[in-house]
């Protein structure tokens, strides 16, 4: 019974996703490209790099990279904190 209900919900979500994928714009025609045209035209003059993607990641949109560096740092610190050695009298999930 639960498995049948789960299957119906899964089929509903699949139909919704496929319908949404077929009703987008045709592949290769972006809608608004004014900001990216400015990036492509001015990256060599203002930032003096040849790679426009690196200029966007580190200079034009540097805040996003700062947030991403924070997320990566937090993940590494969390994994290191989870696998810390415990003392003998602190049981894992024992009596507080």
């Amino acid at each position, binding site marked *: 019974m639960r498995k049948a209900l789960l299957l119906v919900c899964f089929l509903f979500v699949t139909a919704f996703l496929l319908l949404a994928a077929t009703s987008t714009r045709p592949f290769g025609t972006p809608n608004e490209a004014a900001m990216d045209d400015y990036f492509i035209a001015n990256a*060599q*003059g*203002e*930032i*003096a*790099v*040849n*790679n426009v*993607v*690196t*200029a966007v*990641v*580190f*200079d034009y949109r*540097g*805040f996003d*990279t*700062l947030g991403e*560096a924070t997320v*990566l*740092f937090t*993940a*590494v610190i969390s*994994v*290191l904190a*989870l*696998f810390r050695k415990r003392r003998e009298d602190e049981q894992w999930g024992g009596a507080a």
Partner: protein
Amino acid sequence: MGGCGMNQDGMSVIVRTVTRFVYGLILVFGFYVIMHGHLTPGGGFQGGAVVASAFALLLVALGTAGVKGHLNKHLLQSLEEVGALAFLGLAFAGIGTAFFYNLLANTGGGFFGVGVPAGPNAGVLNAGGLVPLMNWAVGLKVMTGIACIVIVMLVGARKEGTE
């Protein structure tokens, strides 16, 4: 120290010999991808992932007992913090004008200040301002962070599984 320990002894002789030969080449390629991030496809994150895969190869081929002489976990942890602080410091370097202001771009020769001709060209390594330095900071952070995660999870999984 028996039991079904995960990879205590590493893999066979063939894998260890090929690892010793290939490890340096992967390191050099990773540093090349990081260093030329402002000229060719690549950059800090991609090159850091390549170097981290070299560390993971060393860990799988030599086992947790054999890698203790090659990789120092405390050094890797300190380098990751240095990378994070260096990226933040470079973001604050141009605070006189704005946050994330590119201080060294187009300053006319010197330390990463050469201008780049417009249109397709052959690539100038000395250009870019603070962007190559940020590539190095982020690359250091990513490679040491992923190496720390892999080492801690493999050693910790062995201990948790046999408790």
